[in-house]
């Protein structure tokens, strides 16, 4: 955190000054470790085992926060008897379709009186293949905000004794995560684990809270989502959710990565985490709503959100009669993530590509494949500040050097358009706290540089104009499309009349924000998503952002100084939903609505006023008393009881056990990374059985564990950031002041590994995987510590991955090494735990580089099948 979120780290230092204990779990001793009270060196890829060990400690020693757990989690909920755990199936859960690598998650259900469809979820007639497609469409991700289906009123056993109640299941599930096993798997000595267990549990309870902070060390794995789930279970058990000083904080990446997830430029979602319609089961609006809505809580209002979005998109054209233009939306047939897109480029279906502030030529996993994909395009548009590698690969990319590509034979047309900087445009970023902050134009962009708002708006304007003209003319629509007009209607009907200002015809960003916020039919800005309707009387571009323009005021531009507010600072910017700063903060009060302790008071029920109040905006229905109990037949928001603190959840509870929403299991289980020098010591199942595999000539996997050839890649490697650089380097390698601070790509190795492989400090090393070989300067440092894993010593190689061929400091991109195998929930690549070889000296140049890689592949016996088994 000190490295990648340095200014955020000031709050950690502040907490430390006040006596907080800081624990840092990281394979490497980093700048964060330097300020931690405890550093836990861990084998990359073994955190589920480690945190599982803590959960086991909590469960065996009954260290959980019982009252909290009972009231706010599903600990007491009873599961159906169809459910079978990894304990029963040697490492997999019930419902695994091994052939299709997909889980049927029907057996993960709660036991309840509700009648369930026999099988399948959205539509009873989905076949296995269709189910897989739907799963691949990122349903898990869309449901990250809480929309997963579950029985709203399951059976429970408040005594927690029922053998099928969640707590008992948990106990059995985590029983094998003993200190000895954790030590063996993760390389964390028993007494160190013990110390962490004690620190964490002693600091949790009514009067104390422990916070978890994670980022890519936990997400970029084939089981990334389950890493976070493990922490979620622990935090829910300890009563650390929804409370000040508690929680699980995702430290997100770019300035507006949160915003670009909320208003997603992602294939699987529409704004506000509404799932993109799928080919199956989403035929019309009603079918879509039926498939994607839950019965209880705020996700019960999906129709309001969806219709309002359609109205925002298509305005007057969207009417009750035409399903509000729902039919205009394109449909998914599976995953269309950035990695599948590369495959579509390679196979020639995807011929055009916009790079709008991203540098996949060095920043994305298996960078060579990314470039080969780009070399298969007809055209490429790159908008950036500088000539990044994604704009110049045809000129100086590594394939030119190896001779795989020749500039004069590459057909791709490349447009480079200079982008305006944040100082040259109005707009909002959503930061890692879900807070929108407005930035104001300081100066107009110079030369040809333009904002992306300008680009999108004027591109849209031109396309609409051209399509309108073509529609009048005779230009033929593609095959299967009735008429050009029908084909182009979605574009032509789009509301696209944003006012422009200034000499450059810059669209007014505030007007776009107002559309995102939403308005009623008379144009009045809405102030809350509770005002949204399904009858077409409201339009809203992103329901969770509704309120950001309340009263016609840009709430994101609020800048009341922090020093003039309470510590929650609610009047700085605007956080979704409804400007709440701590999610699920109802849980900071006990079931009766009183703070668990005065020290940890955040919001509470004020009986006198008959409403929730406190330091933060209560994340609850403002006037719903703690003793409210819904009628049996209540639905939607009405069905939320006065103690259902987790209001976005289908049952109002924090999920220790996830009955739905995750495609790879209701509970986390330790699996080895896609490429690992070790066998899974916890289960017979080596890998996440439903991880996403991309089989391609240019994406060969290595053998793992006990498989022959795995010893060719005996070391664990991980990639990470440096404070001094930014991501793929476009915003740091080109700046003298940052480039000089870390002027060369390096790898970090322990003195022991250096000795083993004859690596010299400040000399060169070549790091090899089945995809490529790269060279790096060597930093031999004791901060890299060999660990004892699976009865032997394992060395880890650290690779800060910011480099590429362009800029003031240049070097090989670590992403040449990275394979594509993805977390099945969110399609994230596993670049945090891999296996590699390292050798002294520089890598071969020219065609010899590929020869070296081939030689390694042969030595390890790598075929198309290697590593693809579930």
């Amino acid at each position, binding site marked *: 955190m*000190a*490295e990648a979120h*340095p*200014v955020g*780290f*000031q709050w950690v*230092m502040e907490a430390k000054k006040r006596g907080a204990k800081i624990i840092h779990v990281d394979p490497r*001793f980093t*700048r*964060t*470790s*330097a*300020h931690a009270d405890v*550093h836990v060196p861990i084998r990359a890829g073994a955190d589920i085992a480690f945190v599982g060990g803590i959960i086991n400690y909590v469960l065996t020693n009954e260290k959980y926060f019982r009252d909290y757990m009972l009231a706010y989690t599903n600990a007491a909920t009873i599961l159906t008897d169809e459910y079978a755990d990894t304990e029963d199936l040697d490492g997999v859960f019930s419902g695994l379709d091994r052939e299709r690598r997909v889980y049927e998650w029907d057996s993960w259900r709660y036991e309840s009186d509700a009648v369930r469809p026999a099988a399948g979820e959205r539509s009873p007639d989905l076949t296995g293949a269709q189910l897989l497609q739907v799963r691949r469409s990122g349903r898990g991700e869309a449901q990250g905000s809480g929309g997963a289906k579950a029985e709203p009123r399951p059976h429970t056993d408040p005594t927690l004794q029922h053998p099928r109640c969640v707590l008992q299941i948990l106990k059995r599930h985590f029983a094998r995560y003993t200190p000895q096993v954790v030590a063996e798997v993760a390389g964390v000595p028993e007494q160190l684990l013990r110390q962490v267990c004690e620190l964490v549990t002693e600091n949790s309870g009514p009067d104390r809270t422990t916070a978890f902070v994670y980022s890519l060390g936990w997400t970029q794995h084939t089981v990334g989502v389950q890493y976070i789930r493990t922490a979620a279970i622990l935090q829910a058990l300890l009563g650390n959710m929804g409370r000040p000083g508690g929680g699980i904080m995702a430290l997100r990446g770019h300035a507006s990565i949160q915003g670009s997830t909320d208003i997603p430029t992602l294939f699987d979602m529409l704004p506000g985490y509404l799932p993109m319609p799928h080919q199956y089961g989403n035929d019309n609006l009603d079918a879509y709503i039926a498939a994607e809505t839950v019965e209880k809580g705020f996700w019960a209002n999906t129709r309001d959100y969806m219709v309002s979005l359609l109205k925002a998109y298509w305005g007057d054209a969207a009417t009750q009669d035409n399903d509000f233009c729902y039919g205009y939306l394109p449909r998914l047939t599976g995953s269309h993530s950035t990695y599948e897109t590369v495959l579509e480029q390679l196979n020639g279906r995807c011929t055009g590509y916009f790079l709008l502030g991203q540098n996949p030529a060095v920043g994305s996993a298996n960078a060579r494949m990314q470039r080969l994909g780009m070399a298969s395009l007809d055209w490429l548009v790159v908008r950036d500040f500088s000539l990044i590698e994604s704009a110049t690969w045809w000129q100086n990319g590594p394939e030119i050097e190896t001779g795989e590509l020749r500039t004069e034979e590459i057909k791709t047309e490349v447009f480079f358009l200079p982008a305006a900087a944040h100082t040259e445009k109005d707009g909002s970023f959503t930061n890692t706290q879900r807070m929108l902050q407005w930035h104001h134009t300081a100066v107009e962009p110079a030369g040809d540089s333009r904002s992306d708002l300008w680009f999108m708006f004027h591109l849209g304007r031109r396309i609409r104009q051209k399509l309108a003209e073509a529609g009048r003319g005779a230009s033929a629509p593609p095959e299967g499309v009735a008429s050009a007009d029908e084909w182009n209607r979605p574009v032509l009907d789009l509301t696209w009349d944003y006012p422009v200002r200034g000499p450059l015809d810059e669209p007014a960003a505030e007007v776009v924000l107002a559309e995102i916020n939403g308005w009623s039919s008379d144009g009045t800005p809405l102030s809350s998503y509770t005002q949204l309707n399904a009858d077409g009387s409201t339009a809203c571009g992103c329901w969770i952002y509704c309120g950001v323009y309340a009263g016609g005021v840009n709430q994101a531009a609020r800048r009341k100084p922090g020093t003039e507010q309470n510590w929650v600072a609610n009047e700085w910017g605007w956080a979704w939903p409804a400007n709440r700063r701590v999610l699920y903060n109802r849980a900071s009060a006990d079931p009766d609505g009183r703070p668990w302790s005065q020290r940890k008071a955040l919001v509470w029920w004020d009986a006198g006023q008959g409403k929730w109040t406190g330091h933060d905006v209560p994340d609850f229905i403002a006037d719903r008393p703690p003793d409210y109990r819904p009628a049996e037949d209540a639905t939607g928001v009405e069905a939320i009881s006065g103690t259902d603190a987790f209001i976005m959840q289908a049952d109002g509870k924090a999920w220790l056990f996830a009955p739905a929403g995750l495609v790879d299991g209701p509970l986390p289980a330790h699996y080895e990374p896609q490429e690992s020098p070790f066998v899974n010591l916890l289960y017979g199942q080596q890998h996440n059985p439903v991880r996403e595999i991309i089989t391609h000539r240019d994406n060969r996997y290595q053998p793992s564990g006990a498989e022959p050839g795995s010893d060719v890649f005996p070391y664990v490697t991980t990639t990470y950031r*440096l*404070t*001094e650089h930014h991501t793929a380097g476009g915003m740091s390698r080109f700046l*003298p*002041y*940052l*480039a*000089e*601070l*870390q*002027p*060369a790509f*390096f790898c970090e190795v322990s003195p022991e590994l250096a000795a083993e492989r004859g690596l010299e*400090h*400040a000399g060169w090393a070549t790091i090899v995987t089945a995809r490529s070989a790269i060279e790096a*300067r060597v*930093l031999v*440092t*004791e*901060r890299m*510590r060999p660990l004892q894993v699976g009865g032997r010593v394992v060395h880890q190689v650290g690779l800060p991955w910011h480099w590429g061929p362009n800029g*003031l*400091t240049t070097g090989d991109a670590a992403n040449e090494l990275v394979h594509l195998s993805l977390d099945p929930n969110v399609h994230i690549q596993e670049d945090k735990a891999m296996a590699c070889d390292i050798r002294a000296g520089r890598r071969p140049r020219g065609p010899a580089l590929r020869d070296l890689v081939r030689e390694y592949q042969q030595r390890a016996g790598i075929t198309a099948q290697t590593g693809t088994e579930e």
Partner: protein
Amino acid sequence: MSTRVAPAFAAGPTDAAGGLDPAARSGYADHPPRMGFFTDTSVCIGCKACEVACKEWNKVPEDGLELTGMSYDNTGSLSASTWRHVAFIEQIVRAGDSRWLMSSDVCKHCTEAACLDVCPTGALMRSEFGTVVIQDDVCNGCGYCVSACPFGVVGRRETDGGAHKCTLCYDRIGDGLTPACAKACPTESIQFGPLDELRERAQGRLRELHDAGTPQARLYGEDPADGVGGAGAFFLLLDEPEVYGLPPDPVVTTRDLPRMWRHVATAAAALAAAALLSGLGQRS
């Protein structure tokens, strides 16, 4: 260190803490409180924001793109084009508490500043805040200050021939602003303020650390009785100064200057005498 006697050049008004009052000694009869830095290295996260913020504000050029192999320090040292320098010291033990020390170094703004004393042009100047500033429009690049500074702070820049170092953001503090480096520092490792307040705060922090079981914590440059009369920018260190590249017991060279001049005078007289006497004796 109390045994040292401040020689004649150093005599003059003193401040509340008994230290010399450098602004008053430099012709500012009425002057604001002495301003300075307390750099608490125990909370430095080695982010180098101070280095960059300083460069942005002062338009200091890039200082070379060389991988030093010195942990995460690729700046190396303070120089004409690096006015804040973050040192990284790895003290990793396989059992016990490993440390990775980080420390942001800067000009000490010495009470008795050798650089200033030796500057023949008066380019180096004491400000009314008691800080030591190079006036770039005056400096002729003689390089004397470079060799005079006991901390190796000042450097002469190849590209413009002038000597450069931290000005303690004289332009900013004159207008009530915080120096760029201190303002950026995420963890308040760099604290700017009136020196007497900082000294008090530092003592408090030192006690805190000692009580918390960090006996290695010590202040450096905070003692007005030290060899440079106390630094205007002082530090809390977690190890010996030389571990960070700092001299363990720096003494301003001009403390010995009276004696030097005496010896120079004696030697000159001897030379004169010898030369004149050389004419005596028989002519051939």
